[in-house]
Each structure stands twice: as structure tokens, then as C-alpha cells.
């Protein structure tokens, strides 16, 4: 008999860490049919009621293509597994705006032991419509947090995606490559959102890597705008497994530092996600009908409903308001 997939049961199975349940939950959260969205809302509500937003660690890792993010993730996964932590990964690849098709290749470089049930990787295409991250990333992160200790969101590219990820993850990490001045210039010029952790990968490149490292140290080290956190600038070599423990330590230290504020931080991210979706659907005019961004965020921060039901309720409110205008 197939396992029960009703929202309450699915939530229980998920919280118990069942892999099949996580796969099913992610499929459901991806499902755009209205009955499925209703079930997904109920599932998220059950997870939020269990306190998922105050547990685990949501880490965003980003950087330009070819910088070795997946290999670095792979090394991090091994380190976390040695520390006894269960790991979930959401790997986001770009999709074609023309065909909607995408090639999702990040798994290739994340080698894990197939007998290890403590790692779960889901690849996602950015699906064009939602800036850099796909709209499903936030709800899926909640499901991932329910079943894992650490959740890694990996994205490619420079620009919009970094901003999106800074508004989704508890801790953001930017991976820079020695010798490629561009991303470092972007960071220095403030075009990129400043991450909580900076790492120069491919430290096996010797002098070039050390130069990039000291350049970043000079330009960026200091206190993060969040306050109370000095941005570490690290050197790592994913291929040689060097500097990975220190990177994992830096993540853990940041998680500890934000612990008192964790749930509030995630509620802000959830509000931001809702705002962004509504903006994409209705534009600024729609958002203005709710009293503008600030009012919306203030209102959402105080609320506890699941994001999908909230989204539907707000959509209805805007639609009504816009109809009254006519």
C-alpha cells in the first residue's frame, strides 16, 4: 500500500526524517494545481506549527560559474556528515526562458555515498519567472529544514540571485575565484549583497589565490551590516579538501551568533518572498492597494499563517481592491 500523503501525516513522516516523505513533499510543493496548493499550504502550516522556523541552519552558497561551488558543497557535505548532521541541498540551475527546459547538472559534482541516507539533493531550475531563484525555493526550504539539520541552497551567477539568496538564507556565502577580478570588483563596488562568509576557492592555485584573498581581506573584512558579525575571509581548496573544516566552523559560528534572532529573521525572509511574488503577479500598483511594501512587511511579520495560504489570501485581497477601483 502506498504511504499516506495527507498533509498532517506527510508532515509527521517528514519530521521523522523519512526520505520518501521529503521527496513527496517537494513534488507537492512544486505542484501548481489548486488542490495541490491547498494541500501544500496545510503541510507548511503543520511544519510551522511544529517550530521548524526556529530549527536547523539554512545556508546559501553562491558565486560566478566555474568557481567550484558544487565541488565545495560536496566537500562541505562530507564534513557535515562526519559531524553527524543530516544535509539537504537545493541546487538551482538556470533554465531557458524560451523553452522552459533546463539541464540540471550539479549532482554530477556532488558525490555522496549512495548508501548514506543522511544526504538529500533536489535540483531546481530557476524557471525564469522569479528573478534569480525559483518561487518554489522558500517553501521547499521549509520542507528541507523539517527533515535535515543543515540545508544548503546553491545558485550560480552574479547579480539578482545573490540578492534573492541573501533574502532566503540564514547565512550567505560567496565563493570567489582567484584571478577573476570581476566578482571581487562587484563586491568592492557594493553591487553585490555583502555575504556573511567569503571564501576564495582553489587555494591550490598558490600565489594567485593568496593575492585574491588579501585583496578581499583588505576590501571587505569588517563588520557585516547585520551587526555583531565580523565577515571571515577564508581560503579553501575543494579538490584537495583543504580549508573545509574552517568553512564549516565559520557557518556554525554565524548560526550561533544569529540564534536569538533566527525565527524573526526567517519571518522577514518569508515576508520578503511574499512581497516579491505579489509584485511579480500584480506589480507596484497591486502592492500599493495593500498599503505599500513597508505596511505589508509589518503586517506579515506579525502573522503566523503558512506562506501559501497567506499568499492566496493576499492575492484575493488585491484582486478585490483592484476590482473596486474599476
Amino acid at each position: 500500500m502506498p504511504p499516506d500523503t495527507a498533509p498532517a501525516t506527510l508532515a509527521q513522516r517528514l519530521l521523522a526524517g523519512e526520505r520518501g516523505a521529503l521527496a513527496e513533499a517537494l513534488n507537492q510543493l512544486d505542484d501548481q494545481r489548486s488542490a495541490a496548493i491547498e494541500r501544500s499550504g496545510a503541510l507548511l502550516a503543520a511544519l510551522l506549527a511544529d517550530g521548524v522556523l526556529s530549527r536547523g541552519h539554512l545556508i546559501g552558497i553562491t558565486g560566478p560559474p566555474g568557481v567550484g561551488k558544487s565541488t565545495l558543497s560536496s566537500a562541505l557535505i562530507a564534513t557535515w556528515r562526519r559531524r553527524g548532521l543530516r544535509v539537504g541541498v537545493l541546487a538551482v540551475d538556470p533554465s531557458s526562458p524560451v523553452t522552459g527546459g533546463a539541464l540540471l547538472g550539479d549532482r554530477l559534482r556532488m558525490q555522496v555515498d549512495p548508501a548514506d541516507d543522511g544526504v538529500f539533493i533536489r535540483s531546481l531550475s530557476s524557471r525564469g519567472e522569479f528573478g534569480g531563484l525559483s518561487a518554489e525555493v522558500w517553501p521547499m526550504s521549509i520542507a528541507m529544514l523539517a527533515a535535515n539539520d543543515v540545508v544548503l541552497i546553491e545558485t550560480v551567477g552574479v547579480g539578482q540571485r545573490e540578492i534573492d539568496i541573501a533574502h532566503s538564507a540564514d547565512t550567505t556565502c560567496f565563493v570567489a575565484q582567484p584571478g577573476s577580478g570581476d566578482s571581487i570588483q562587484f563586491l568592492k563596488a557594493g553591487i553585490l549583497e555583502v555575504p556573511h562568509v567569503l571564501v576564495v576557492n582553489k587555494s591550490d592555485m598558490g600565489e594567485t589565490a593568496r593575492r585574491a584573498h588579501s585583496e578581499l581581506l583588505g576590501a571587505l573584512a569588517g563588520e557585516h551590516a547585520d551587526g555583531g558579525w565580523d565577515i571571515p575571509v577564508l581560503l579553501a581548496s575543494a579538490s584537495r579538501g583543504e580549508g573545509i573544516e574552517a568553512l564549516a566552523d565559520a557557518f556554525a559560528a554565524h548560526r550561533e551568533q544569529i540564534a536569538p534572532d533566527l525565527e524573526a529573521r526567517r519571518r522577514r525572509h518569508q515576508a520578503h518572498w511574499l512581497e516579491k511574488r505579489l509584485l511579480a503577479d500584480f506589480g507596484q500598483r497591486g502592492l500599493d492597494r495593500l498599503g505599500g511594501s513597508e505596511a505589508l512587511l509589518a503586517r506579515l511579520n506579525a502573522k503566523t499563517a503558512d506562506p501559501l495560504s497567506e499568499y492566496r489570501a493576499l492575492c484575493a485581497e488585491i484582486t478585490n481592491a483592484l476590482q473596486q477601483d474599476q
Partner: protein
Amino acid sequence: MSEQGTERDRPWLMRTYSGHSSARASNELYRTNLSKGQTGLSVAFDLPTQTGYDSDHPLARGEVGKVGVPIDHIGDMAILFDQIPLDRMNTSMTINATAPWLLALYIAVAEKQGADPSALQGTTQNDVLKEYLSRGTYIFPPEPSVRLTTDLIAYTVDNIPKWNPTNVCSYHLQEAGATPTQELAYALSTAIEILDAVRDSGQVGEERFEEVVGRISFFVNAGIRFVEETCKLRAFVRMWDEITARRYGVQNPKLRRFRYGVQVNSLGLTESQPENNVQRIVLEMLGVTLSRGARARAIQLPAWNEALGLPRPWDQQWALRMQQVLAFETDLLEYGDLLDGSPVVEAKVQSLIDGAREEMARIEDLGGMVACIDNGHVKRELVQSHTARIRAIENGDLQIVGVNCFKQTADSPLTSEDDSGILKVDEGAEREQVAALERFRAQRNQGEVDAALADLRAAATGSTNIMPASIACARAGVTTGEWSQVLRDVFGEYRAPTGVDFSGKAGGSGDALAAVRERVHATGEAVGRPLRLLIGKPGLDGHSNGAEQIAVKARDAGFEVVYEGIRLTPAQIARAAQEEGVHLIGLSVLSGSHMELVEDIYCELEQLGLGHLPLVVGGIIPQEDEQVLRKRGVADVFTPKDIDMNTIMARMVEIIRDSHGLDSAA
């Protein structure tokens, strides 16, 4: 530097690439082939041997003795060459990642036969770089792989002076889609990378470096455009002469010769009307023999039925006879170079040289061949060329008789015999090989084995040449899996870029594709989310061109495609299907182990509660097996005759619709 005189040219070495089931069965085949007038041997090893696994390793299941002979230890190697005196034989071994090991076994067997190892003649393919780009039997990362290649070269130059230690391959690059220009550029850039590495390793004195250059040989492909192929070989001759003179300062013109062996193109052989492959093979052979100054030193021809399955001894005999007719009946060998002085040929050669020089400069700019493999540049170029070729076949720009034109045919008597015109591998071969391996392990001296492996580890960790320690391992009774495991521990394992372009840029157009895309989109709406497809390559077979082309096409058709590259276990594939929430799994298997692998994958899927997921299989799959697979639940089977990829895409959508209870196309 060709001789222009009228003295008759010596015929090339005639070989047949063969080996299957067991060392005993292969030895019998070799001796039969030699008695039929074959003048050299070309050993095909099975995939576990090529990728460094013993026959009883879990990854070897279903692969033992399939595409070649299994060699687990010195006992197998001794049987393989039983009654074949190695000091009088010329043996070519298609072996790469484990080349030092198989050469060590060959040397140890020669010693046992009482032969003088320094008199051995033959070739180890020993070109791992192309394995990353095509074929896929690499094990270690590029850096240690180049070191192993270098060690083997340095050792043979000192100890087996007539051995060809490396056969730089452009053959597999053409199979992966390379144009003649790319073939020239990539093969020559690879040769440069290898020679530079040998020079920089300091293992060979400067005064003897000329000899190293003189031992480098090539292994090329010859396609059906035989005029262009002839010009390509003339271009190779000229460019190699120039590179060896300018870059390496080789004075002796004999040591600057472009020496090459050839296997004519198997990619172009067709499954439909397979008898037409005979004339294809003959014409392709012309391309590498016509020009005396650029004539092949050794030729091996595929059999006419390779696209159907494994050739039988009679099929291989037919291929050998083609060579003999050309060499002994025709007057080809009586003349000097027929093409010298032809302005048409000269212009074509020059344009190939110009194109190749340009690409070689680009590779040099990007840091050389190893860097261009690691950063995916070369693989991307190859996948693009291959995609262009397939599009040209689909839209009819490239005509293939019996495939996309002149398709009407009478029934072929060649494939209607009881055996369907192919060889059946002995089902018990794997079991017997594993049992023999266990007996071998039980009777050897474990103390000697451990000591030899410890020395091997020390050599690998340091910078001592790997060959002496490997030969000691061979004598002590170390197995293929044990030798490889030590090096895996020291060097690590590697996964190569797939070359499938991840930048999100989609290509492909046309009404057929647009219609499929529409259907993919509509079906995605109906099932609630975009259609997701997992392309899996289970087993040890690394021929990934087919899987890559399907992945690219499916992306263009609007699927979200998860592709993880080669050499996956059934457990990894089932796991990926679960984690990725896919709607369909597509498997690609070309090694003949499809029956075992599909069964194993079903078992793994069922354990995860995913037994209902639809599955399609592509590869070289005999009709008889196809029926069995369908009975097991496989939704569709695609073989080389399914040339229209849009049709394959359309089938996949309908299979997904069917599995969701949606109406299918009329």
C-alpha cells in the same frame, strides 16, 4: 618524406579488435585469426579491466567478458597468450587508465614464456586524455593520469625500445562528434601535452628525447568522406613533422614521421540495412591507404554488424578479407603517392591545417589540453559539433542511405538466421571468471602480495617510476582491482565535465520540435509541474555521446533534465530518481549489460516505492532482448535505428501522459 620510387610498399599490419568472455575463449579466437592471415593482435579488454575492478566487484556485475576479455591477474594474461610467442608477436592493447598494469602483466608473461622483454613489440593505447572527452574509461584526475602515461613512456624508451608506449587517439574524438579540423587540433594538442610532461618529468635525458618523440604514435578514425579523410591524414603528416622539428628540435626526419594505426568509423555504421556497412568500411579503408605518404601502419576494421550486437568470428573474417583484397589483389601498393601534386588535395590540406592551427592556438591560450578538459572547453565544442551532425541527419542535409533516404528494403537474409546475425556471449562466463578469481586468490602467497602492494603505494606516493613496482605486483599475483585500488587511494577518483552546455542557452527549432515542446508544456500543466527527466548511464560503459545528445534535445524540448554523467550504480540512479522527483527515467547502455542493469534498477526502485516510474532504455539492444525488457515493464526501447530524436521526445511525453492516466496522442 614518402618514397617516390616504384618499389612496392609493404602491407600494413592487419588486426581485428577482439576479445570476449574469457582469456581461454579469446586465446582460441586469436589463434584462429592468426591462422587466417592476420598479422598482429588487437586486444579488447572488458570494462572492469579497463576501469580497474576485479570481476567480482559489484560494479562489474553484468560487464565481465562483455565488450572484451576479463584480465584479473597474471594467470588470465598467461592463458590469453598461450601458444603465442610474445617476442614474435605485435600486440596492440586498447588500455588506458590501467595501461601500466596491463603492460606489467604482458611483460611478466613474456618473462614466463622465456622471452626477452626488451624484444617486445606492440602498442599500449595509454591516452587517458581522450577518455575524459569520449569513451569514459578514466579513473584518476588528469594530473596523476598524465604522470602514469609519462612513467610508461619513460620506462619503455629505456627498456622496451620497439614498444609504442602511447597511441594518441583522435579516433574517439570523431565518434564524439569532432570535425576533421577538431580531430587534428585535439590529437596534436594532446601529443604536445604528453611530450611536454615527459620532458618536464626529467625521467629521460635530453640527448635521448628524440627517441621519445619518435615513439609517439597515433590512432585515428576514418569516416565515409574519404577524400577529406585522406587530406586530414596528409595534414597530420605535415603538422607533426613541423611540431616535432620546431617545438622539440628533432633533427632525424625518421623520428618526425607521423606513424598511425586506424580503426575505421563505427559511429557511421547503421542498424538498418546493415549490409551497406560493408561498402562503407571498404571506402573508409581507402581514405587511410590511398596516399602512400600518409598511409596507415596498422588497420583494424569493424564488422558489418557492429550496430546490431557483437560480431561473430565469420563477421570478423569478412572484415580481415577486405584488407587482404586491397593489399594483395589490387595494385595500390605498387605506386608512389597518387595525390602528390594535386592542387585540389593541396588546397584542402592547407585549409585543414589553417583551421587546426587556429584551434590549437586557442587551446594553448587557455592553458593547454589538460586545462581545456578540466574546464569543459573541448567537451563543449565536441557536444556542439555532434549536435550539429545529428540535426543535419534529422533535417536531411546529411544523407545516410537506408536511414534517412532510400529506406525501402527487402528482408535481409544476413540477419534472419537463428542467431539474428550476432554473437551470443556465454551466459556462464562471468560466473566462471569469478570462481577462477577466488581460486587464484586462495593459492597465492599473501605475504608477497602485500609487500608488492606496499612498494606500489610508495612509488605512487613518491615520484619513482610506477612500472617496476607494477611488474613486481604482476609477478606476485596482485589482481587488477588491488593494483587500481592502491592508486585510487593515492590519486583519488575523477568525474569529468559532461560537456552538456549548462548556460541555459537553448537551441533547436523546426515544426516537429515546436509541436513536442507544446506537448511537454501542456503535459506539465496537466500533472501540475514541469516534466522532469532523469538520464542515467548505469554500469561501466563510458560511451556517453548518445546520453548527452538525448539530454540536450530533451532540454530543447522543454524538459527539466537531470544528467549525472557516466558510471552510476543502479542504487545511485534509483536514489536520484527519488530525490529529483522525476516523471521518467531514460537509461543508456551500450556495453551489452542492459539485461542485468535494468533488472537491478527495477529492484532498487521498488525498494524506494518507485516501481511505478516509467523507464525507457536506449543503446545497442538486440530485438530478442527488447521483447524481454518490455515484458519486464520497460515502456520503450530505442536503438541506433531510431535516428529521429523528435520522435523519441514525443514518445517520452506520451509515456508520461500514459503513466498519469492522461489521454495519449491519436
